[in-house]
C-alpha cells in the first residue's frame, strides 16, 4: 500500500515559544471523511429555531428531509421538492406556487425564509426576483437565504449567510422604545432550554433580555433588536459577525461572555454587572446560586480530578468548554473544531496548557489516531464521532448535548455537565471491555 504522503499541518501541538496557530478556514481536501458540513447545514443550524417563520427549501426533497432535524429536534420544513423536469425547465414557478400555498397554510407566519440549495443555484433560478415579487403578495418579508451547499469551505459560511440575512433584512426595521437594561444575546441556540436558564440568571440581576439570536427570536424582537444597550456575545465563531456589524451600524457595544463552567459564569456575570452598573446584584446572584450547588459539585470534583478529556466540535465553544473542564479539575489533552477561525484558535491556545494538540478540520482518521495515541478518558463531540469513539472503548459526551442531559449553562447547568462527564468516564461498560 502506498506510503501516506499527507501533510498534517492542520494539527499542532502547543509548545512554549511557538506562536503558530493551525491554518484554518481553508477548503478541506477531497477524499477525506470530513466532519464538516455544507453552507445549507450552517444556515439551517442558525435559522431553524425561528418559530414564527415559514422555512421553505427550494431544492430536491433530500435537503428538506435532512434539514428538518436540527440539534436533534424536528422542525416543520416546507420543500419545493425539485424534480427532473424542474431542473431542465426551471423551478421558478414551483417556488411561486409553493410560497403562496405555504402562506395559506400558515397565515400567522410573520416572515418567510427561502433556502437556495446546490441544485437551484446551479440551474440558476432567479429566486431573488421571485421572492421580491412575492413579498407584496404575501404581505410579509420573504428572505432569500443564499446557501447552496458548495458555498464557502464549511458550515461556517452558512452561519454567516444566515446572520447576514437577519442583519440586512430584519434588524432595524422598526423603531420602538424598549425597557431599560435590555440586552440581546447573540449566538445562543436554546439547547434544552439553555436560553431560559441564562434569561432567568440575568433577570435576577434586573436585566431584561430582548432578543436571543436565534434561540428565542420572535419577529417583533428581531426588527427592534437594534434598540438595546448591549449585546452579549456567547458563541463567538457564529455570532461575532453579527455583534461586530451591530456595533458598526448601530453603535451597540458587545461583551464576550460565556455561561459554561463555574469560573466563566461568574466572570461573565461580574462583567455584565460592571458594565450595566449592577455590581451588587451580580454578586448576590453568584453567592446565592453557588451555595445551592456546592455539596453535589464537590462529589463530582473528587471523582473527575485529573481525568483526561479531548474535544472536537464546532468552533464556538472550544475555549469555554476547555475552561469548564478545567473547573472540573480535568485535563484537556486535545482539542479541535470543524470550522474554527484564527480568533477561535487564538483563544483556545490561550486556554490550554502547553503540550495540548490543537486540530483544525480533523478528519475521521485524525481523530482515530488521536484517540489511539492519547487515550483520553472522555471525548466530547457530535453524534458522528460518538460511535467510533465507543468502538475504541472511550467514553463519549455529545455536545451540543442530547435531550435528556438538560441545560449545561449557568450554575445548576454546570452540575448537569459534570454529571454527563462523570457518566461518560465511569460507565461500567468500559471496565468490562478491558477485562475480557
Amino acid at each position: 500500500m502506498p506510503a501516506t504522503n499527507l501533510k498534517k499541518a492542520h494539527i499542532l501541538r502547543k509548545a512554549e515559544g511557538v506562536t503558530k496557530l493551525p491554518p484554518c478556514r481553508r477548503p478541506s481536501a477531497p477524499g477525506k471523511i470530513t466532519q464538516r458540513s455544507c453552507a445549507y447545514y450552517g444556515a439551517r443550524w442558525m435559522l431553524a429555531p425561528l418559530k414564527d417563520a415559514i422555512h421553505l427549501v427550494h431544492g430536491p426533497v433530500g435537503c428538506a428531509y435532512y434539514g428538518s432535524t436540527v440539534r436533534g429536534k424536528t422542525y416543520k420544513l416546507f420543500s419545493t421538492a425539485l424534480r427532473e423536469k424542474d431542473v431542465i425547465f426551471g423551478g421558478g414557478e414551483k417556488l411561486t406556487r409553493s410560497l403562496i400555498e405555504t402562506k395559506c397554510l400558515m397565515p400567522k407566519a410573520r416572515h418567510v425564509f427561502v433556502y437556495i440549495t446546490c441544485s437551484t443555484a446551479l440551474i440558476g433560478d432567479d429566486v431573488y426576483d421571485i421572492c421580491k415579487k412575492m413579498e407584496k403578495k404575501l404581505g410579509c418579508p420573504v428572505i432569500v437565504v443564499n446557501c447552496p451547499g458548495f458555498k464557502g469551505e464549511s458550515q461556517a459560511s452558512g452561519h454567516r449567510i444566515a446572520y447576514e440575512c437577519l442583519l440586512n433584512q430584519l434588524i432595524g426595521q422598526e423603531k420602538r422604545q424598549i425597557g431599560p437594561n435590555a440586552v440581546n444575546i447573540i449566538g445562543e441556540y436554546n439547547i434544552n432550554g439553555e436560553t431560559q436558564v441564562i434569561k432567568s440568571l440575568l433577570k435576577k440581576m434586573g436585566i431584561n433580555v430582548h432578543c436571543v439570536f436565534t434561540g428565542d427570536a420572535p419577529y417583533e424582537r428581531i426588527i427592534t433588536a437594534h434598540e438595546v444597550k448591549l449585546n452579549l456575545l456567547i458563541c463567538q465563531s457564529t455570532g461575532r459577525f453579527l455583534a461586530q456589524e451591530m456595533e458598526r451600524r448601530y453603535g451597540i457595544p458587545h461583551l464576550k461572555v460565556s455561561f459554561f463552567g463555574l469560573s466563566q459564569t461568574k466572570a461573565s456575570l461580574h462583567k455584565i454587572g460592571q458594565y450595566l452598573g449592577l455590581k451588587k446584584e451580580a454578586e448576590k446572584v453568584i453567592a446565592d446560586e453557588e451555595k445551592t450547588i456546592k455539596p453535589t459539585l464537590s462529589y463530582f470534583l473528587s471523582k473527575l480530578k485529573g481525568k483526561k478529556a479531548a474535544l472536537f466540535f464546532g468552533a464556538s465553544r472550544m475555549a469555554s468548554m476547555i475552561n469548564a473542564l478545567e473547573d472540573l479539575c480535568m485535563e484537556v489533552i486535545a482539542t479541535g473544531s470543524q470550522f474554527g477561525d484564527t480568533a477561535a484558535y487564538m483563544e483556545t491556545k490561550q486556554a490550554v496548557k502547553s503540550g495540548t494538540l490543537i486540530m483544525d478540520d480533523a478528519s475521521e482518521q485524525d481523530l482515530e489516531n488521536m484517540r489511539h495515541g492519547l487515550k483520553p478518558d472522555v471525548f466530547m463531540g457530535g453524534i458522528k464521532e460518538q460511535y467510533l469513539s465507543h468502538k475504541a472503548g472511550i467514553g463519549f459526551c455529545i455536545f451540543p448535548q442530547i435531550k435528556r442531559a438538560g441545560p449545561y449553562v449557568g450554575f445548576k447547568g454546570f452540575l448537569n455537565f459534570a454529571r454527563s462527564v462523570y457518566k461518560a468516564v465511569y460507565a461500567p461498560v468500559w471496565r468490562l471491555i478491558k477485562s475480557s
Partner: protein
Amino acid sequence: MKLNGRLTIEDLNALPEIPIEGINYEQIYIEKEPICPEYTPPDETIIPSSKRTVVIDPGRICMPFGAMWASVGVHKCIPFVQGAQGCTTYPRYTFSRIFREPVSIATASFHEDAAVFGGRKNLIEGIRNLICRYQPEVISIITVCSSEIIGDDIDSYLDEAKEQLEEEFGPEVSDSVKFVIIHTPSFAGSHIEGYNRAAKAFLQTLAKKRSPNNKVNIIPGMVTPGDIREVKHILRLMGIENIILFDISGTLDCPLRLPQSMPYYPKGGTKSEEIMDMANSLATFALSPHEGKAGATYLEKRFKVPAIIGPLPLGVHNTDIFVKRLADVTGRPIPEEIKDERGILLDAMADTFHYTMMRRVAICGDPDIVAAATRFTCELGMEPVAIFNGTPSKDFAQEVWAVAEEYNYKPTIFNGGDMFEWEDFIKREKVDLILGNSKAVNVAKETDTPIVRIGFPIYDRVGYQRRANIGYRGGEYLLDLIVNTILDSKFPDDRVHQ
C-alpha cells in the same frame, strides 16, 4: 377570495400549468399542535398532495442515501460522494442516529470552484487521498444533484484517476481497488431507487461468470441488520449456502471488542469476491421488489440467473412464499424446525386475535415494508384504513389493492404523497393503531394513538435495528409488539390479567 387582503384567486389562476383551480385559500390553517378545542383543521381542498406544489414532511429522502446504504453493506467499501460536504455529513448523522454505529463516507468537498469548473480535480485528488488514508477494497462513487447538473463525466475522470494512481504507486495499488459508479441525481427517484441502482451498478461492475456455485443470492433491500440475520437463520435451517448482497448485519451492528483495527473497518459486509460470484448462483431473491429488482433482473438477463422478485417475507403468507420458493429453487425439503416456527407464530396469532381483530390501523413507510405490513395486519384481522408510501409506485398500489380485495377492506392509499395528507387523514378518521417509522410519532402523539415502530428510520428508540420483523420469528416479535402496544393503551391494567 383574498389572502391578507391582497391576493385574489385570479392571481393564482394567472399562474399556468399546475392545476389548482377551485382551491379555496381562505380559512386554511395548519398548526402542528395537539388536537384541542382550538385546533382548526386545514381546508380540505389543499390537503391532497396532488393539489399542492409544496411538499410538507416528505416521506422519502434523495437517491444518494440509498446508494450509500447499499455501499455500507459491502466489506471494506467506502462510498465517495461526488458533491458538497453536506451530502455526506447529513447521511452520516442519519446512519448514526438509526444504527448507533460509525459510518465512513468520503466526500469530494465541492466548493465554488467545483461548481464552476466541474468536479474533475476533486474526484482525482479525492480518490488518491482516500486510498492513501484508508486502503479500501471497494470505492463506490456516488453522484448527487450538483455533480449531475454540472455534468461531471465520472467515467473519464475515473480513468484518469486510475492512470495517475498507477503512475504514482504502481499497478498493484490501482488494481487492488475496485470502483463502482452509481449515478443518483437527487432530484429523481428516492432512496429506494438509489438502493436499486446501487444493486445493479455493483453487479454490473463486479459480477463475473464462472463455474456454478450452488448458492442462492439474496438482495434484502433496506431492511434492518436483524432482518438479514433472520434470513440467514432460515437459510441455515434449510442448509442453503447463500450470498447476501449489501449485508449490513456485519457492518451496521458490530460488536465492541478491543483492540480495534486502524483504520476502523467492520468485520462483516459482503465481500467483493462474493459479489463477483453472484453471476454463478442458482437464483436471485430480491426480497424487496423496489429495492434490488434492478440487480436481480440484470443477473437474469446477463447471466441467466433466475430472478425471484419479492414479496418481502413479513407475515405468514409472504414468508410461506419465500420458504416455498427457496425449497423449489434448491430442491431441498422444508425442515421441521421451520414448520415449527410457523406453528409458533400461528399459535401466537390464535392466542391474541381478540386484541388485534377489527382494529383500525394506519401504516406508513417505504413501499415494500408497507405492502408487506398491510398484508400482515390483514392476517391479524386488523383493518388497514390509511396506507402511506413515500415513494410513488404502481406496483405498490397494485399489491396493496390485491391484499385489500382479498380481505375485503377499502383502505385509502396515499401513494407517493407527503406525510402531511396522511397525518391529516388520521386526525379526521380516528385509528386504533399506527404502524410506522419515527416520522409518524408526531401524529401519534397529537392524536393520542398508540404506535408500533417499524421500517426506516427509527431513531427515537434503541434496539429496533437489531430486531427482525421478517420471517416467522420476526412475525412473532412484531405480533407481540403490536399486542403489547394495544394492551398498554387500550386496556386498563386490571383487565389485562388472563
